């Protein structure tokens, strides 16, 4: 019996997944919009003085709710602070917290996912059950409890507390994604080949499995950055986040809330910046995922 199906083989030289993804990314408008937004926000976080010469903590009650003048293009809030300066400086702590928290989550997720996926067996069962338990608690509820406890020190401005809270609670998705990526690439030929050539578990994991499992993980972390920025704002808004001398979009929104009827600007501008930043990271994650996942093109 002959199988004509076997006669036809597809030709084509192999290209690396990352290389393909980059070629694809370069052609996407969404990617460039997101990238520009992210860069702007990052620059704003690192050198806020490039954007404004005013000090966000330099507030004069005499200017209370005053309209825009000179550099203060967004006007002043109920305490007489420059809304534009506050908004620009608000980027710093938001980005700092979000990036550090994402790094913490990334490291935890990476290790847990790698260990569960690679070693399997009882370790996988244990870690997976623990992840289930973590997912049994709505994220913000757990964050509120932990943040409230960590931020009980009246002297601190809450940056460390919020970073730890978001970082320690937010790794579950990353771990799950890493685990399943490891499970798929573990059984592939090149890993089997490396194992036969005598590579140990450490080398196998970090040299062979990790590079090929990393793309969905990176997508998750990108989206997590956006989630953490929103998370910081929410915790600050609720009063268990940044405080004291910290300047944050979440605090600004919370403070402006009761006064919206008299002045909308102090509420609107931090909201816009916050949403734009979250949007940038979501779009970036979307674009990168689409580039790595040719299925839905």
């Amino acid at each position, binding site marked *: 019996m002959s199988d004509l199906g076997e006669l036809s083989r597809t030709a084509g030289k192999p290209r690396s997944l990352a290389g393909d993804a980059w070629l694809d990314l370069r052609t996407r408008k969404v990617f460039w919009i997101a990238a520009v937004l992210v860069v702007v926000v990052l620059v704003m976080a690192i050198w806020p003085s490039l954007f404004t010469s005013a000090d966000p903590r330099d507030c004069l009650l005499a200017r209370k709710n005053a309209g825009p003048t000179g550099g203060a293009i967004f006007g002043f809030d109920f305490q007489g602070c420059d809304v534009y300066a506050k908004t620009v400086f608000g980027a710093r702590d938001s980005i700092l917290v979000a990036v550090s928290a994402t790094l913490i989550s990334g490291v935890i997720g990476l290790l847990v996912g790698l260990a569960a996926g690679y070693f399997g067996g009882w370790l996988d069962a244990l870690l997976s059950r623990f992840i289930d338990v973590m997912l*049994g608690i709505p994220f913000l509820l757990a964050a509120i409890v932990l943040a409230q406890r960590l931020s009980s020190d009246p002297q601190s401005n809450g940056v460390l507390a919020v970073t730890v809270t978001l970082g320690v609670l937010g790794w579950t998705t990353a771990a799950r994604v890493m685990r399943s990526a490891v499970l798929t690439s573990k059984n592939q030929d090149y890993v089997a080949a490396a194992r036969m050539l005598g590579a140990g578990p450490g080398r196998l994991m970090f040299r062979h499995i990790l590079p090929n499992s990393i793309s969905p993980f990176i997508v998750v972390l990108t989206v997590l950055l956006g989630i953490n920025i929103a998370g910081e704002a929410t915790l600050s808004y609720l009063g268990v986040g940044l405080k004291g001398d910290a300047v944050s979009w979440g605090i600004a929104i919370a403070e402006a809330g009761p006064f919206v009827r008299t002045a909308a600007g102090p509420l609107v501008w931090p*909201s816009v910046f916050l949403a734009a930043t979250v949007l940038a990271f979501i779009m970036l994650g979307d674009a990168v995922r689409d580039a790595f996942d040719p299925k839905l093109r």
Partner: protein
Amino acid sequence: MFRFIVRRLLQMVVTFFGATFVVYALMFAYVDDPYQALVGDRPITDAQRAALDARFHLDDGFFQQYWHYIRGLLTGDLGETITGRSIGDLLAQAWPVTIRLALLSIVIAAVVAVGAGVLSGIRRGGAFDTVTLVLTLIVLAMPIVVLAPLAQLVLGIQLGWFPPTAGRDAGLYELLLPALVLGSLVIATELRVTRTSVAENLRADYVRTARAKGLAPKRVIGVHVLRNSLIPVITLIGVDIGVLMSGAIVTEGVFNIPGVGFNLFRGIRAEDGPLVVGFVSVLIIVFLVINLIVDLVYAALDPRIRYE
């Protein structure tokens, strides 16, 4: 099916103990001064200290504390707030309006997400799809702390389309705007999952079979594609309940709705530890039970799960 239910119930019991333990540990493990962890940095009276001891057994070991706490939770005894009010009573007063709000927002979200998601999925790349995608992206980018105050400002105060606040006995109309806000938190993801799922199912082989059977497009989509497409959306609703709970804290605070979220919101701001732990624990139980129900519905919809 019976074995599935039993297994799922057991799983829920494990998760319940795990989750409450984690929350308890987040609050109390390795604290120097557990009293201060509960009440923040304000001074505390001896009476309060005694009440906290009675409730949390702070002078016991950590695991005994957890045991007392679980026993209270399971017998419905939630203890008292810092200010001496019964947490159980507070909850009982707060539930009704929160349930109304939650149901309303779930219905709004489900109807909009499934309706628009199916339309987008059928005509992927069309004008409707493109507009919906952009809108969902914008909604996705708005954290609740942006969405709730802005919606109140624009739709409630400036345009005056909706009442900007709602009280304890708020009717459906007063709750409409907060429910919309709350629903938008989950609409975007539900819509996108519906859309992808419909688009994927439309390409499935069984759709080709259904068409080869001479069925009209309406029946192919309404009977064959829809049920398959809804399966992943149903699982999402379980997760979404958690998002709604978190969202309700801010939303009820902004719109002055004296529900569960509002009380929690005030409890957080007043650094009322017992209230926060009590409310959070109850919310987790609700979350777990709803997820159990969602899983059962999921199994009813997908025979492959039921018979595995």
